C-alpha cells in the first residue's frame, strides 16, 4: 500500500510535529531512535516498500473502517466511544493499589489479575522514575505494576519497548497504551508486522482515556525548573471546572493554572480523533464527579473475560456507570473527534486530506458539521 519509508516518516510526521511519540517506529529499528522527547533518524535506511516505521505510525494512512471491521466486525464511528460490549464503573478492591493509583486503580488491579491468572507474562507500561521522567518498562510482577501506577501526563514511547521484546521469551503480553498507541497496535493487528514481537503475543490491550498528552521534553524541563521533582508523589488534573494541574508531595499540594500547562501539550494531540482508546480490549479513564473510581469500557471478548474474572476473584469493585456520566463521556469523545477533523482541514487546507483516515463519507460529514 505505502511505498514510503523513514525519510517520509521524518518529513511528513516528525518534522511537521505530528509525531505522538508512541514509539511504534523505534525499538527494533536501528535507524530510528527516541531520545528526550524526539524521534531521530540516526542513519539513512533504504527501505521504502512497506517500511514498517511509516506503515504502523498512527499519523500515517489508517483504514479506520477496515480495522474496526477486522477487530470488532463493526464499521467505525457508529458510537462516539467506539465499539462497546459494556460500560462500567470500577475500582481496585485492594486499598494499597488505590492509594498508589491515579484514580481507582482499575488498570493495576486488572493487570495484576491477568499476571496471576497466567493470561499474560508481562506488561509494557510507563514507569515514572524517581526523577519523574516517564520511561517504558516491562512489568513482570505485582511489585513492578505498583511502581508504574499513576500518570505523569507526558507522552512515553512504550511501543518502542514492545518492539524490543524477544518473540520467544514473552509469548503472552499485556500493554497499557494511550489512544494513539492503541491505534498503532490496531494497525499491527490488522496487518501483522514482520521481524518484530509477534503482535499475536499481545493478549491484552488496556487503553487509557486521553484528551491530550504533554511533551516529555518541554514539560519536563518546566517541571524541573519549577519543582523539587524528587519530592513529587503524584500529578493530577482534577475535572472541570477546576482548571488546575496539581502536584502532590508527601505533605503538600501545589497547583499550576491549566492554561500554563496547556502550552506544553503535544501539537499532534489536536489532530487525534480518539479519546477513549477505541481499539483496546478494555479502556479505562476517570469518572467525572466521582472521585476514586474509573470508567471502564469493555470492547472485546478478551476484555469481557478479564472483567468476569475480576468480578469472580473480587479484584475489582464494580458498579454501573450513571447514565449522565455515560452521556457526558460520549459528548466529550464526539467533541474531540469534531475538533480533530476540523483542525486537520484547517491545517491542510483541504478536506481531501482526510482520506488518510479512511472514514466513511457520512461520518466525515457528520463530524465536520
Amino acid at each position, binding site marked *: 500500500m505505502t511505498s514510503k519509508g523513514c525519510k517520509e516518516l521524518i518529513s511528513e510526521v516528525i518534522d511537521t510535529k505530528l509525531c505522538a511519540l508512541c514509539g511504534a517506529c523505534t525499538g*527494533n529499528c*536501528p535507524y530510528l*531512535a527516541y531520545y528526550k522527547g524526539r524521534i531521530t533518524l540516526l542513519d539513512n535506511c533504504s*527501505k521504502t516498500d512497506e517500511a514498517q516505521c511509516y506503515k504502523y505510525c498512527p499519523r500515517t494512512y489508517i483504514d479506520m473502517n477496515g480495522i474496526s471491521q477486522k477487530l470488532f466486525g463493526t464499521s467505525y464511528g457508529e458510537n462516539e466511544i467506539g465499539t462497546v460490549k459494556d460500560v462500567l464503573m470500577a475500582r481496585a478492591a485492594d486499598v494499597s493499589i488505590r492509594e498508589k493509583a491515579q484514580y481507582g486503580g482499575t488498570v493495576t488491579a486488572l493487570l495484576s489479575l491477568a499476571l496471576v491468572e497466567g493470561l499474560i507474562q508481562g506488561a509494557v507500561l510507563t514507569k515514572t522514575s524517581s526523577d519523574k521522567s516517564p520511561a517504558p518498562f516491562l512489568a513482570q510482577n505485582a511489585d513492578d505494576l505498583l511502581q508504574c501506577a499513576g500518570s505523569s501526563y507526558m507522552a512515553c514511547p512504550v511501543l518502542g519497548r514492545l518492539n524490543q521484546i524477544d518473540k520467544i521469551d514473552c509469548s503472552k503480553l499485556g500493554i497499557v497504551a494511550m489512544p494513539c498507541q492503541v491505534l498503532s497496535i490496531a494497525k499491527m493487528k490488522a496487518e501483522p508486522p514482520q*521481524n518484530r514481537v509477534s503482535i499475536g503475543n499481545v493478549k491484552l490491550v488496556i487503553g487509557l482515556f486521553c484528551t491530550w498528552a504533554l511533551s516529555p521534553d518541554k514539560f519536563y524541563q518546566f517541571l524541573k525548573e519549577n519543582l523539587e521533582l524528587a519530592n513529587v508523589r503524584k500529578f493530577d488534573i482534577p475535572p472541570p471546572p477546576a482548571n488546575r494541574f496539581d502536584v502532590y508531595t508527601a505533605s503538600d499540594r501545589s497547583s499550576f493554572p491549566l492554561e500554563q500547562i496547556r502550552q506544553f501539550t503535544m501539537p499532534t494531540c489536536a489532530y487525534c480523533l480518539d479519546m477513549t482508546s477505541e481499539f483496546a480490549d478494555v479502556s479505562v479513564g476517570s469518572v467525572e464527579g466521582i472521585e476514586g473510581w474509573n470508567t471502564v469500557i469493555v470492547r472485546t471478548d478478551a476484555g469481557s473475560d478479564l472483567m468476569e474474572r475480576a468480578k469472580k476473584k473480587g479484584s475489582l469493585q464494580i458498579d454501573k456507570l450513571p447514565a449522565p456520566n455515560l452521556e457526558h463521556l460520549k459528548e466529550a469523545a464526539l467533541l474531540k473527534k469534531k475538533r480533530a477533523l476540523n483542525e486537520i482541514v484547517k491545517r491542510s487546507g483541504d478536506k481531501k486530506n482526510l482520506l488518510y483516515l479512511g472514514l466513511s463519507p457520512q461520518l466525515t460529514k457528520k463530524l465536520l458539521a
Partner: protein
Amino acid sequence: MANIEIDAPGTSQLLIGNEAIARGALEAGIGFAAAYPGTPSSEILGSLAQVAKKIGIYAEWSINEMVAIEAAAGASFAGIRALAAMKQNGVNVVSDFLANLVMTGTGKGGLVLVSCDDPSAISSSNEQDTRPAAKWLDIPLVEPGDFQEAKDMTKWLFDLAEEMGTICMLRSVTRIAHARGNVRLGELPNKPRKAHFEQVHDLRNVMPTTFIPIPSPFRHLLLHIKLDKAREKFESSPFNRYVGPDKPELMIITSGSCWLYSQDAVEALKLKDRVGILKLGTLWPLPERFVIEHMSKSDKVLFVEEIDPFIEGNVVELAGNFPPNAARPVFYGKRSGQINAYGELNPDMVIKAIANILGLTYQPRDIDYSKKAEAAAKSNVPDRTMTFCAGCPHRATFWSIKNALKLDGRDGFVTGDIGCYSMALGPAGFFQVRTMHCMGGGAGVANGLGKLGQFGFDQPVIAVVGDSTFYHATIPALINGIYNQSKFILVILDNSATAMTGFQPHPGTGITAMGEPTKVVSMEALCRSLGAHVEVCDPFDLKATTNTLLKMMTEDGGAKVAIMRRSCELVRIKKEKPPYKVHIDIDKCIGEACGCDRLCTRIFLCPGLVWDKKAGKSKIDEVICSGCGVCVDICPQGAIIREAA
C-alpha cells in the same frame, strides 16, 4: 628495515631513499637525530633510532617538529652534527624557529633539515612544496635525484652546513623517500665528537649567546654572505650536471624524481640527440653561472618539476636580469601550461609536454591495453572504500559520536585533525568530520566555534584528535578553551600509538624511540591539572560512550575532555589473541528486510563483515575479523554472536 650501519665501504645495499638519507647522515658523523613522524619522512629517524644505541648516537621521536628542530639545533650549538626530519607540514610548524636560527647561525656541529614532500598528497592533508620555504628563509637547499645521491648529498650537506655555519635543507619527495635502489656505501667515522657549548664570540657563526649586541640587519647581511658562499660552492657541485647534445633543440631543466621521469621521457621518445637534460641538485641559491652556461645552448627550455614552479621562477627571474639585447630562450613549464602546478608528475606527462613543444605525435600505449591493465590491476584489489581496520577503536568511537550528535538533535558536528581518523570525513567514520586542517587545528577551530553562543550558536562541537596529535599540538588549544571558557568537547582517540605513520612511540606510550622505558605523560592527569572535566571511555562500550558524550554536550562550562581509550588493533593483535570468536546466526539475520536493511554491511562497514548477496545474510570474513565483538552491539536483531575465544 635495511641494515644502515653495516660497515662495508664500497659495497652496495638496497635502500629506500629515507634509509639512504639516514646512512648519509651516519657517514657524515651525525650524533643527534630528532623527528616527528610524518609520511613520507618517517623511516629516516626510524632507521636511525634502530641503530642508535649500537653506534653511539642519540635519536628521538620528539613531541613535534618544532621541538625536533630546536633540539637538533641545541646539539649543533654544542658541536654535535644533528639532523631533524619531517614531512612538508613540519616545515610550516618550524618556520618561526628557522627564521630566527638563520639569523644567529648554527653551532660548530653541522645542522641539516630533511623535508619530505608528498606531491599528490598521497598521505597528507595538503599538497605543498617546501622548496620556496628555503628561499624565503635564506636556507641553502639541495634535492637528490636518486638513492645514491640521497646518501651522498646528505653526507656532503653536513660538511657544507658546518662550513657555512647555517642550517641546510635537503628536500625529498615520496618517490625518492619510499622507492628502493642500490646505494654504494661509504665509510663510517669512528671518532665521536665531544659536546661542549662554547660561550665565546664567533663572528663566523654568530652564536646565540652573543647575538644580543649585534643588530638584526647586520646579522641578515652576514647570512647573505653565507648564501653567496654557498652559491659559489654550488656552481661546481657534482650534483648539478648536463647530459645531452651540445646544441639541443630543447633543454629540460629538472631536479629530484622529475629528473628520472625526464630521462625516461627522452628515452621513450628516442630524442637523446635532440633534447638535453640539465639536472640540478643544488636548488637554492641557484648556481646562476652554471645555469646560464647550459641554458644558452638551446632556444627552448622546459622546466620539469613537481608542484610549484620553483626552479622555473628562479631561472626566469635570472633571465629577467639579462642585458636588454641578450638572447633569451622561450620558457615552457607551468606558466605556459605544459606542466601541471599540482599533483605528481610521471614520464607520460613529461612525454606529452616534450611532444607538444616539439610538435611530435606520440601514443604512449594503445588505449585497449591501458584499459586491460587497469582492469587487471583492479582484479587484485578488494572492492572497498578507504576505511578503518577491522577492530579499529575509531570506528566504534565515531559510531557513538554520530549517534550522540544525532540524538542530541542540535545539529552538532566534529572538527577533525590529522591521523587515521581523518578518514572520518568519509564513510569510515560515518561522515562525521566536518573540518580538517593541520595538527591541532581541529581543537583550535573548536575554540572559536565554542564562543559563538552570543550569536545564537548552540550546535555542540566535538574536536577529535589522536593521542599523538594531542601531545603534538593540541594542548595550547585545550588550555585556551579552559581559560577562555569555550564550549566544546575534546575527544582524544587514545589508541596508544602514532598509528598512521607506523606506531612510533609518543609521551603516552612509556617507551622512547631507542626502545628505552620512560615516564608516561598521563593525558588525563595533564588535562585534569588544567582544570578540565575529563571522562575516560572504552569506545567498545557503545552505549556508555554515547551516553557520556550526550551528557557532556548538555553541561555548561568551558572545554571538556573525553578520552577514548583502546589500543590500536594493529598493536593489540601483535600482543594478544582475539578476545572473541564472532559468527552470524543466520536464522536471526534478517538481511535487507525492514528492521535492519543491512546495517552492518551498509552503514557500520567493518571490513570483517561481508554481505552474502546470494543468501541475503551477513557473513563474518574470518580472515579479516579481529574478534573485537563491537558489531554484536549494533545488530538490531541480535544475529551477531560473540563467544569468548
